[in-house]
Every structure is written in C-alpha cells, then in structure tokens.
C-alpha cells in the first residue's frame, strides 16, 4: 500500500497519459484531438519533472556561502522546457491546420470530413 501511494506521481502520469491517449483515439472532433494530444504530452512533462526531484533539494542556483546545499536535478527540467516549446509549436501548427480545414470543409469533425471527401 505504501508503495502504491509513494509512487503517486507515476499514477498521475499514467492516468493523464491514458486519458489523453484515449481522447486522441476516440474523439472525432479535431480540436478535442489536439486537447487530448496536449494532455498526453503534459503527462510526459510531469514524468520528467518529477524525475528531477531530490529529497530536500532546493532550486539549483549557486548562492555564495551555501556550497554544500542539496540541489534538485536541473537537467530533466531543462529537457522538458525544450519539449514544452516543441509542444507549443505542435499545438500552434495543429490549430493552424484546423483553421484551414474549417475553411476548406466547413467542419472540424473527422467523420464529416472523410464523408465529404468520399463524395468527390
């Protein structure tokens, strides 16, 4: 039981990951798909951020006079900052595509789009 609760950050990650993944797969609304994709990516961000936690660690900024302080591991944070930026870029591109899809098809529903394609 202790183990299960002690790993709570992973449970959050798993729940978010599966929720996001489910939305991406099951929803036919393109905007909802993007939202699901964002939730999915966020779960990975949390996975990385929780990885950098060190017990009793502080922010990794060197201050004079406290050379033996314990620091959290900054590397996963830096990595995930990059991944967040990538995520923002992906979302912007996806939304831009959806705007153009809406202009071209008049709908953002995946099934309606494939229907109107099949009519051609």
């Amino acid at each position, binding site marked *: 039981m202790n183990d299960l609760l002690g790993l709570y950050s992973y449970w959050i990650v798993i729940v978010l990951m599966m929720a996001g993944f489910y939305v991406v797969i099951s929803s036919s609304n393109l905007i909802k798909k993007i939202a699901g994709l964002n939730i999915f990516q966020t779960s990975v961000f949390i996975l990385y951020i929780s*990885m950098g936690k060190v017990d009793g660690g502080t922010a990794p900024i060197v201050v004079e006079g406290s050379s033996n302080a314990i620091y959290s591991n900054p590397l*996963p944070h830096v990595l995930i900052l990059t991944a967040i930026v990538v995520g923002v870029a992906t979302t912007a591109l996806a939304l831009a595509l959806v705007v153009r*899809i809406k202009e071209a098809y008049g709908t953002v529903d995946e099934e309606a789009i494939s229907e109107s394609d099949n009519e051609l």
Partner: protein
Amino acid sequence: MTLATHYPILQVVIPLLAAPACVLLKNPRACWLLTMLVMLVSLGIAGQLVWQTSESGVISYAIGGWAAPWGIEYRVDALSSYVLLIITTIGALVLPFAARSVADEINIKMQYLFYAAFLLCYTGMLGITITGDAFNLFVFLEISSLSSYALVSLGKDRRALSAAFQYLIMGTLGATFYLIGIGLLYMMTGTLNMADLAERLPAVNESRTVLTALAFLTVGISLKLALFPLHSWLPNAYTYAPSAVSALLAGTATKVAAYVLLRVLFTIFGVDFVLGTMPVAEILIILGMAAILIGSMVAIFQENLKRLLAYSSIAQIGYIVVGISLGTVTGLTAGLVHLFNHAIIKSALFMAIGCIIYRLNSVLIGDIAGLGKRMPWTMAAFVAGGVSLIGVPLTAGFISKWYLVLAALDKGYWPIVVVVLAGSLMAVVYIWRIVETAYFKPYNGPASISEAPLTMLIPTWLLIMVNFYVGIDSSLTAGIASKAAAQLLGVSP
C-alpha cells in the same frame, strides 16, 4: 583547428541558418538559389565525412567544447555518414526539380516559406543522423517532423490539410513515445549520450523500466517509420503533398526513422539484449513480412499513382525492417543497401510522377493512357524506376533483394525468401498496370501535352542513372553498408 574538424556541425548549421535567411530574402528565385547552394555544400560535406570516417573511423565533435557525456556530442561513424550521404544526395537532386514544380504548385507568396520549411526539414534529418545524444535526437526529430507537416499541408488539394493533420497527430504520438522511452532510460542510467547509455545499460538490463523503455522506443520509432500496422498516416501524406515534398519525404523521412531504429536497437541496447533477451526481432520480422505482403497487395488496387507508390513504400519499408531484424552482418547490409536503393528509386519515381502532374495535372491511372508516346522520357524514367522496384538484375533493387535472400537463407528463414519473391511478383503486377496503360492504350487526353521541361527531367534521370550504376557496381554502397553493419554489431568486418 582547420575547417575540416568542424564538418559535423557545419553539416547541420549551414542549412539551419539558410532557413531564416530564406525568410529574410522572401524572393522565391533568390531562396531557391540559396537553398541549392546549401544543398551542394551539404553534399560536399557529407562526401568529406564519408571519406574521413573510412580513413580514421569515428569522428566525435563536442558542441560548445563540453566533452561527452556531459555535453552534446555529434558523432559520425560509418552508418551515420552513409545515411548523411543518402539524405544529401536526394536533397541535391530533388531541389533542381523543385524549382519548376514548386512554381507550378504553390502560391507565389508562400514559396519562400516552402524553401524555409524544406531547409528546416532537411536540417532536422541531418541532425538526427549526426547527433550522438538521445535527447538532441528528439529535438531534431521534431524539427524535421513539424516542418514536414507544414510542407505536406501546402498541397493544392484540400485533402492535403486533413492528411497533414493526421500525420501531425500520428507523428507527435510517435515522438512523444520516443520521449517517454528516453526519459525512462535517463531514470535508470542518468545519461543521455548514446555511447554512455550503451555502457551503462547492461548493469540495469533486468529492470522492468528498461524493458518498458525499449517497448516505448520501438513503437514510437515504428510510427515514424510507418511500419505496418502503424502506417496509416503515410499514404495520404505522400499522396496529397506537393510533388517535390513527396519526392523528398519518400526518399529520406522513413530512411531516417530506420536509422533511428538501428541506433536505438543496436547502439543503445545492443544486439545481444534486443535479439537475445527480448523478442523484438521476431516481432519486427513478422510485421516487416506483413508490410511487404499487405503493402504490395493494396498497391495493386490503387487508382491514384502517388497512392500506389506510397503503398509500395510501405512494402519497401518492410524489406528494410526484415533485413535489419535478422541481426546478422549480411542482414543488416541488406537493410542498409535497400535504405539507399529505395531512397533513390522512390525519389526518382515520385519525381517522374511530378513531371506527369506538371503537364497533365492529374495522377489518376486512367488519365495516363497512351502517355508513353507523348512524354517518352518521363515514362521511360518511370519504367526504369519500376523495374528496379521489382528487382530485375542490373538494377539497384536487385542488389538489395539478393542480399536479403542470402541473409535469410544463412539463417534458414525460408519463409522470408517466399515473402520477398511474392512481394516482387506483386510489384510486377502494379508496375505492369502502369506500363500497360501508358504504352498499350490509345492516347485520349488534350493534344497540347508534351514532354516535361528539362530542369525536371534531368534530376529524375540522374537518379535513375545512379540506380543503374549501383545496380551494376554495388561495391560503393554495399562496401560502406557492410562496414556500417559490422560496426553496429561490434564485429570486425
């Protein structure tokens, strides 16, 4: 400190800086000229790197002077220099073709953005190939993917938009899977450098985290690779993208993903772990064989030429994956040789289709009836490429299939031989359909149709020539490939 020591970084930085320069220039002609210059310089650098690695082995370059494994390391060995050569060759030949094709297919106001995105896509693929850092690879993967989504969406048909969106969703899922895998590996080892990971992983091999990481990485990369059954994004993306983009992506994007698969399976995890402990190879071989059969089968029934070629690509990826998964030097050589051969064949075929689109504005098989007389050179290029796809002797396709059959017989996996033969027979069927329509049916299109312009034909034919050259004298590709294969498996060639 001469310039030669900086080739690994220059290979990536020159196209990277040319992309914003294109945004500044804005004039399509100037952008094209700059891009062409960059492609030629990149090709030169890649050639130099191939030569350097064959002379002195592995080249390592520390970004910012921070030594590996702390800093980001760029690492060029036989395999990466080989893939660099593939990408730069395709890039340098697709671009001259792109000038006319882009002017025809893309709004003039968007053209500078096309070249910027083209350069970024190219940068990303070169970066993936050259980096020795697992996370840096993710960043380059996303650079190339994001720009290729944008490139696909530039297609004239509105279906290009939904194809690009589908590609984006699948591609992002794949990249995020890769990211999860790398994160899990970092948790277990505390390093991101590939060589360092390879050293530290054996100690923690037994842990479930590492096994999960392997699973996430394999699935993520297979999505990018469009390995059956994760290929659903590929046919639409290739079909509706502008011709130049189809030619570039078909030649390089999946090849780079195959390279990542090789790196992860053999460099990071090591052949013993992947092929011995885990059933990765068995799964990949079965999926690869399914890809060959189903991809070729579906290709036979396509009415749209680009879609036909896209499904044929899925089958060809199957050949590559089967070769890789055999895990022997011959098998890997077969996979790697086919990497090169399929890149040039598919790019040449997509460029021939681009010529047809330029004149005919259609890619439906019914519309090319009798075109063999109207566009003899284009159709001849198409047939030459198709013959190579089938694997007729004296073409590049034959060499790779020959190696693959040899490797399969070595291991006693005769079902692979049967599948390769069946795949080739089905290739005969779908190529023959096109040949029959183009040459043996009366022409009934508009009277004004004539041969495609030379700027489009020459690059196409150059690729076809390379294809025949490699088919007759395979020592260049097979030589580097077998060396790279030996290096990956850690045996002396």
